């Protein structure tokens, strides 16, 4: 690989975090971060008349298990887990959705102490099924975790080096002459002297919003990062075995 790209990659200080499938892991701090879950999305579809013969909550649990296993197999430990908001989907109380949510939560309790399960409020988390557990922002020394639909001044404090968010559901569309495929991706970039890391949605069936179109169709109202800045963010595409570096958004083909 070209020296220059290597240099650029090193700037991202990769020794502090790593990508594990669709999740982000801070090995030194032993914190695992998970993007939008949208539990209850299948319920909503059912409600709209789409027969969806699978429970997404179960799928979420099995995908989380896989990630836990992978990290542990590398001899690393996970102490804390942070969910970056939009944990649930419906904007109102939904009994079946709450049941699904509690199933996932019960599962997590087997792995983590309750105080180490951090839930952050997203724009979909209008109801707190646990009553007071969900918070707007979580700060862990130099890392700030938030959903990404609203700005909190805490993230611009001097001690913060990393801002981790979800909300945008980034994905990339790759096309050649005859073929089109869509993949989830991470976005990493600098804004106000912090390193921002944007996670893809964790939900398998939510492919995402393609970053290829950010050049033309980026909605600043939907994001806390300005249009100009986001175009300089780097794209890391999630493959089966590893992530692939695709350069800056603005240079995408």
């Amino acid at each position, binding site marked *: 690989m070209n020296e220059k790209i290597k240099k650029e990659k090193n700037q991202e200080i990769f020794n502090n975090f790593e990508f594990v499938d669709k999740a982000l892991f801070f090995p030194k701090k032993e914190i695992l971060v998970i993007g939008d879950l949208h539990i209850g999305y299948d319920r909503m579809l059912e409600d709209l008349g789409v027969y969806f013969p699978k429970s997404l909550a179960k799928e979420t649990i099995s995908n989380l298990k896989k990630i836990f296993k992978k990290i542990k197999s590398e001899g690393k430990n996970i102490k804390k887990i942070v969910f970056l908001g939009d944990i649930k989907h419906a904007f109102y109380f939904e009994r079946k959705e709450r049941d699904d949510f509690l199933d996932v939560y019960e599962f997590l309790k087997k792995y983590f102490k309750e105080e180490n399960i951090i839930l952050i409020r997203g724009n979909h988390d209008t109801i707190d099924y646990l009553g007071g557990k969900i918070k707007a922002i979580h700060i862990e020394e130099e890392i700030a975790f938030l959903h990404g639909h609203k700005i909190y001044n805490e993230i611009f404090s001097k001690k913060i080096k990393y801002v981790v968010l979800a909300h945008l559901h980034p994905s990339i569309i790759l096309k050649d002459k005859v073929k089109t495929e869509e993949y989830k991706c991470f976005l990493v970039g600098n804004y106000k002297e912090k390193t921002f890391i944007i996670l893809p949605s964790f939900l398998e069936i939510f492919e995402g919003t393609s970053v290829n179109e950010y050049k033309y169709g980026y909605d600043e109202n939907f994001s806390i990062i300005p249009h100009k800045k986001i175009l300089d963010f780097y794209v890391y595409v999630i493959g089966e075995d590893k992530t692939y570096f*695709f350069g800056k958004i603005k240079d995408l083909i």
Partner: protein
Amino acid sequence: MTKILKARERNAEEIKKILHPIVKEWFFSKFKEFSLTQKYGVLPIWERKNILISAETGGTKTLTAFLSILNYLVHLAEKQKLEDKVYAVYTSPLKALSNDIHKNLIEPLKEIEEIAEKKGVKLQKIRVGLRTGDTTPSERTKMLKNPPHILITTPESLAIILSSKNFVKHMNSVEFCIVDEIHSLDNKRGAHLSLTLERLNEISSQWPVKIGLSATIEPMEEVALFLVGIDNSRKIEIARVVLNKKIDVEVLTPVKNIIEDEEIHHKMYELIYKLVKQHKTTLIFTNTRSATERVVNFLKEKFPTEIGEEDIAAHHSSLSKKHRFEIEEKLRQGKLKVVVCSTSLELGIDIGYIDLVIMLGSPKSSSRALQRIGRSGHKLHEIPKGRFIVLDRDDLVECCIIQKEITERKINKIKFPKNCLDVLSQQIFGMAIHKVWHEEELFNLIKKSYCYHELTRKDFLDVISYLSGEYSLEKNHVYGKIWYDPKTKQIGKRGKLARVIYLTNLGTIPEESYINVKIAGSDEFIGVIDETFLSRMKQGDVFVLGGKKYLYRYTRGMNLYVTPEIKRNPTIPSWFSEMLPLSFDSALEINKFRKLMRKKLELGHSKEKILNFIKSYLYVPKETAEAIYNYFLEQHSFLEIPHENLFLIEKFNDQGKKYLIFHSLYGRRVNDALSRAFGYVIGLLGGRDIEIGISDNGFYISGEKMMINRALKEINEKNIEEILKEAIERTDVLVRRFRHCAVRALMILRSYKGKSKSVGRQQLKSHFLFSTVKKISKEFPILREARREVLEDLMDLENAKKVISWIEKGKIKVKILDTEIPSPFALNLILQGHSDLIRIEDKQAFLKRMHELHLQKILKKAEENE
């Protein structure tokens, strides 16, 4: 097995005997004598025999069907014995059926009543009711109180009625059931209707006599079985009414030399104008919606004084119902000089006086051509007049062959789809709403339908499992549609909403999803394109919409943003999914002609001798024969002429791109199957994706490593179906068809809880549902149905198998030849561009390859910056 009998012509005296004096008086006040169709049809219906009547348009079919029924009802009405029930059901797949019914039923009834009144005969009122998707709730309530004696409806509304809570009680002793336009039901609508008819039989305490009305169609025996179902106790008569109507038909070319004259389009409009001027009302068929608009605009622009705004109209299925109706009305009133349509005016509503039918481009089959030409000279003794206008040489040969078939009355065959599991799901759901069934009873009823006669118990039980929610992993959460008790083997409806869901979601015609095309920056709306068309494009592509070129900029949700593009040529061929496929029968005729031509050229016959042969064989004038002669001569001198016993494969390179061109003239549907089978096997052998292009006359495959000889050995009659199943597994078309099937099987509801939603399309990309279902079971019944639909309805697996078997048996010889440039016969195929891709490379391999490409690009950029 159902017995099929031949109907015979009866004499007028016999018919007169059965007619009520008032009906007789009415009839002879309107007509001089019984038509031939009436001589065949009226008495069997009176005698309560099932009958299928086929006759060309203008054959007074509808009145034939109604005459005996009216006669019976008048008898009852006079005796004051008319009950409050439906005596006769008339169903037609046409939307605008009310006009035809007005002429053939309402008016006669009114006139009969008037005669009765004059004579002082007191008749009970005979009621006619129209029930379609547009019938308002208040009209329905009225109908419930005073049921019509004759119910006019569509296949879908009939199914709804049979699952209705209250109205169904009026349907429990229907005596007659007319199915009109039966020839147009060789699709899932037909499969749906075949089950609805069995449901009607089941509900009715007496056998509803079936009366089928059809245009000239083959095979009549199959159509008869479709109408009456399969059962030892059933019989049906077939009446092939041959009117010996003459047809005035001709193939025209706008210019003398089709390939060299660049003014061909210009001249085509002049030719159309000339023809229009010579006639009172001209109907033009263009085959596609986009061409319809184009022709209308051109004619208006080119002849603004002669063809004004008021003289011409476009008619196609994407126009609003109201708009179409207005045009039809104007036509009937003789106010229009020209009507241009895609295919929408093919079916038999009365459209008034038309004295010329022009077909731009081939109608693709003889029965379709006959149907179109039959739209002119709609009265019994007029000669229908049709003109084909052709713009390229393949079209020329094709139209001449079709003209020959029409002249010699060779009618191509239709086929009804069998065992459609999505339609079956919908119908079982409807039946479960009506009552509780025993498994055996339900299965037996379904098997009486011609379209489900060969249904296996496994398929049946799989559908039951799906409907009762068995396939789901989370039983308690999933919304099951019926309940099934394996102990008692009983089946019934589930949930309070079942009936509403059924009524609001019934039907078989898929909704397509469209993307809005807007000008970037201004948000100005230009038009819509098909969702699948969008998936074929990428940023920077140029495409044509409404005759103008646009550059793809970006998409957002259901919108595509573009900028007008003037200089560059389109990079994406215009979508041809709406193109009609050439019928297999006509294709075989062309192959036969090719062989005859090759022989004559090989024998060195003189030009004159060959011209004479063409003239007499194809019934064409000298200039046409000459154009055909030149085309064949070119191919003969350049390479050789493929034909019914010679399958030619051309190998050639275009700027490093390798092509294999298969001269497989079997129609698009067969070629779709063959090309994918070959493409898939060749792709597997080479390990890379393969591009394919398909037309009626052949197909090409393009890729990197192409081992054609090995592929030819690999594919045989026995394994082609399995190969194709694998080949289509990762295609967009399967995902798309799966979505259609999922909607028909009510997996995705179009309307739910009072809200009409397009969720299935907009929020849940169908491939997610597709992959989820695949994870549950690769053999999920609706997934199986989607595969069947692709292979049998979209493609033509049966005939593709036939072609492969001919190759295996040596009836067709395969010859592979290298060429520098494509031969004349191959040119059109190459020019039209690719139509699909066969994915061999999986998603991960593709990601890796694209990654390398991107890295190279980033690298280059980095170097440039230094």
